């Protein structure tokens, strides 16, 4: 490990430990109005009439008619309204916001708003939807010829479910105005996304709005797209009421009404010739829910990763994201990757089994290597370290011996072990870093030689501020306490892009490293100095064309190999996690503890995505809306996990770092399902797989 990797205390450690960190829910509420959303109780309808109860003095109601600018939330496509327009499109679609000084009274009044609906026919199953939001396709080689010449053709369907972020802190924001400006602050990952959305909805100038981050109680994507919606709503209310307005969701509302991971339906057709996969034809379908939000880019990432880490010479991939009248799905750690990686990892597992081969060996025989072309005809410019990582995980987990021992089990308790190998591409897809984000980062030195880092990137607990501090301190040879870094406010920081897509360390970290190099060169004692750096696209990248899906989708990839061991109680169906091993390559760790923390936390989310976390909706209404019926792991549900770090330096990242945040959430589910398969001696194609699925399966096969 390099010296920079040696861990230092986290900047936010003390205040969080002592209970002094100020989350949005901790901000003083004097003079504030509490807001409660009035939401659609039906999945699809025309809003015929809204009847308000008599509002006491000081209370107000806002809806689409109060939006001073455009009643649209500025995202990728402008179809999400600030407040519902003519129609409502999902249960929980916000129609209006009721605000007032007494929180309980606000709740009561919001409950008394009567909405008359003219019902419209809803769709809940993406497979039956005829509204296609996004449709992408690409091809490589000659799949028709490969299928014509194949010795075997295998075809299978795969499904993954909704996943809820379940941040310990729900969504919440406060808006208010002072000095003729609207200020919004709270739990948000991307200050400038929110800033742009506010300018659009309020119809004002950029300088009339400021957005600031409060301490965030978990995000994982939950606070990427959603805060843009909520910010417009609270800002419209604050604008009308002339007072600050605070909306913080309760747990039920947070689960029922905010975005989640897209459910997926995939079909894989694989051609095998002489024991090798020669072609894949892949159909991908994501359920977007009622509005498009992040769906186009989620789907892009999904289809780019659809053939996994393998070199498949002939490839035909088609993906759609369709509208349903379910709650809109958006960003969630992994961002479209976990779904297709689940499918391809299970497919490779099954093809190997069909051929009578050990899946790990079969996968190793198909690995892409440095210099090979990617799914989109780009290039793996840097080493693909999967083989040594697999080796490390096989050893740590004793995979081969266990796999041999877990054949033909018949007792009550049956064990299984499974392995997956995946990647995650760092940064925005294709040329979006260059064409859309155009990130700017700045360092400011004061007369005393303190250096402030000015970026729009947020620390939501993942440790970014430690990483940024170390990058600048190490480059400038300064002690850490000479580096100043506070939560971003758009009044003060340039737009260095959102804190998403595992880009912050790799892309923005490199910007501030370059700025620090320049500051070092130009350093003048006793003077104030400012250095600004702009994004530079890596020159080695093969230009990406989003229309044809060709070129380098990402400059480089982070890699993960996961093994999971389970024990199944065939009397109750209970699935117990017995072991978990992960080898992760996110380049040079900027801080070893922090990277390990990210890997372990994400790995756990991914394990439970495979065998625990399930949202059940009936006609668009989410049924499990509490911690007791949407289960996430407690400490007792988990074994000790072994986290191994593999390091392949990326020359384009600061000190060799690559993207890390999302990587651990890609491969846990397929490894878990492969382990369950191994225990039950079968083939499975869906995640999550729960105890009731175990029981149904055992009933079907009659053992």
């Amino acid at each position, binding site marked *: 490990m390099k010296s920079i990797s040696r*861990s230092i*205390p*986290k900047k*936010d*450690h*003390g*205040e*969080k*430990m*002592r*209970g*002094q*960190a*100020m*989350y949005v*829910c*901790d901000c*003083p509420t004097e003079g504030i109005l509490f807001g409660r959303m009035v939401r659609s109780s039906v999945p699809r309808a025309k809003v015929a009439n809204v009847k308000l109860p008599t509002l006491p003095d000081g209370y107000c109601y806002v809806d689409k008619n109060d939006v001073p600018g455009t009643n649209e939330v500025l995202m990728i496509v402008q179809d999400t309204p600030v407040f519902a327009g003519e129609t409502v499109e999902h249960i929980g679609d916000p129609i209006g916001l009721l605000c007032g000084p007494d929180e309980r009274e606000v709740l009561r009044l919001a409950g008394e708003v009567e909405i008359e609906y003219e019902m419209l026919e809803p769709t809940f199953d993406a497979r039956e939807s005829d509204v296609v939001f996004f449709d992408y396709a690409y091809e490589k080689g000659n799949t028709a010829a490969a299928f014509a010449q194949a010795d075997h053709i295998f075809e299978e369907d795969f499904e993954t479910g909704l996943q809820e*972020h*379940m*941040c*310990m*802190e*729900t969504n919440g924001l406060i808006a208010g105005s002072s000095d003729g400006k609207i200020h919004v602050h709270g739990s948000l990952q991307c200050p400038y996304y929110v800033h742009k959305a506010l300018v659009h909805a309020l119809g004002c100038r950029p300088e009339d709005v400021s957005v600031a981050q409060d*301490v*965030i*109680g*978990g*995000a*994982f994507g939950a606070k990427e797209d959603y805060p843009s919606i909520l910010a417009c709503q609270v800002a419209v209310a604050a604008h009308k009421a002339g007072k600050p307005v605070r909306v913080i969701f*309760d*747990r039920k509302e947070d689960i029922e009404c905010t975005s989640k991971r897209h459910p997926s339906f995939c079909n894989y057709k694989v051609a095998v010739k002489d024991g090798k996969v020669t072609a894949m034809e892949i159909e991908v379908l994501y359920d977007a829910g009622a509005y498009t939000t992040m769906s186009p880019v989620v789907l892009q990432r999904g289809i780019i990763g659809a053939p996994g880490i393998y070199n498949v010479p002939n490839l035909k991939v088609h993906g759609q994201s369709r509208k349903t009248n379910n709650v809109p799905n958006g960003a969630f750690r992994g961002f479209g990757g976990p779904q297709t990686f689940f499918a391809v990892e299970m497919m490779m597992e099954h093809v190997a089994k069909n051929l009578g081969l050990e899946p790990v060996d079969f996968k190793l025989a198909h690995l892409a290597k440095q210099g090979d072309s990617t799914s989109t005809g780009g290039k793996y410019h840097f080493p693909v370290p999967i083989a040594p990582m697999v080796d490390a995980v096989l050893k740590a987990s004793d995979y081969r011996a266990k796999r041999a021992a877990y054949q033909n089990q018949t007792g009550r308790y049956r064990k299984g072990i499974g392995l997956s190998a995946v990647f995650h591409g760092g940064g925005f897809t294709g040329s979006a870093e260059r064409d859309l984000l155009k990130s700017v980062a700045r360092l400011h030195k004061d007369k005393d030689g303190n250096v402030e880092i000015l970026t729009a990137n947020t620390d*939501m*607990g*993942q*440790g970014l501020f430690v990483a940024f501090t170390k990058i600048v301190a190490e480059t400038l040879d300064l002690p850490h306490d000479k580096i100043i870094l506070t939560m971003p406010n758009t009044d003060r920081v340039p737009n260095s892009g959102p804190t998403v897509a595992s880009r912050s360390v790799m892309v923005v970290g490199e910007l501030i490293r370059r700025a620090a190099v320049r500051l070092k060169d130009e350093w003048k004692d006793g003077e104030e100095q400012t250095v600004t750096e702009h994004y530079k696209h890596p020159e080695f990248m093969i230009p990406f064309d989003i229309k044809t899906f060709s070129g380098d989708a990402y400059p480089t990839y982070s890699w993960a190999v996961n093994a999971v061991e389970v024990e199944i109680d065939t009397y109750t169906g209970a699935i117990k996690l017995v072991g978990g091993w992960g080898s992760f390559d996110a380049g040079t760790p900027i*801080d070893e*503890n*922090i990277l*390990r*923390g990210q890997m*372990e*936390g*994400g*790995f*756990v*989310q991914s394990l439970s995505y495979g065998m625990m976390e399930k949202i059940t909706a009936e006609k668009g209404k989410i049924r499990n809306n*509490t*911690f*007791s019926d949407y289960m*996430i*792991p*407690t*400490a*007792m549900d*988990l074994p*000790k*996990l072994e*986290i191994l770090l593999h390091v392949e330096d990326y020359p384009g990242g600061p000190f060799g770092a690559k993207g890390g945040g999302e990587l651990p959430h890609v491969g846990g589910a397929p490894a878990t399902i492969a382990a369950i398969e191994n225990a039950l001696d079968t083939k499975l194609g869906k995640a999550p797989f729960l105890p009731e699925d175990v029981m149904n399966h055992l009933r079907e096969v009659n053992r």
Partner: protein
Amino acid sequence: MSVFNLNGKEVNYAGSPAGRLLDVLRGEWQMTGTKCGCKEGECGACAVIIDGKLTNSCLVAMGSLEGANVTTIEGYRETQRFAALDKAFEAVSAVQCGFCIPGMVLAAECLLSANPHPTEDEIREGISGNICRCTGYGPIIKAIDMAAKEGDGLW
């Protein structure tokens, strides 16, 4: 009116006996170290110590507190035991978003005061009422184990 001890000081509460301790702490008394993650007794973010027992304050009615000893993070953070936990949590960077942490720290205190030398499984059990979505628990368990060893004699 109920009289009880909060972080070592006697307090008089004259509000509704049906009020929730969590709401009174966070709202009326502006002690926001205790967090609210669900208000249904499911997450442990609101955990406080009442008469030595880890208790979810969202399920405690003010009327039930007469004569009780209540410790929240605001009181606990002034103790030596806290300092030992603080040092260990810092050493392994166990705090991510931090929202679960005040409850988690009080859970660690209750565990260690009942069992100063817990095994890993006992630590897992001790914090099983406190949900953490960020860390996967590994670093927190390591920190509690470290605090137990290095703070030997404190508990």
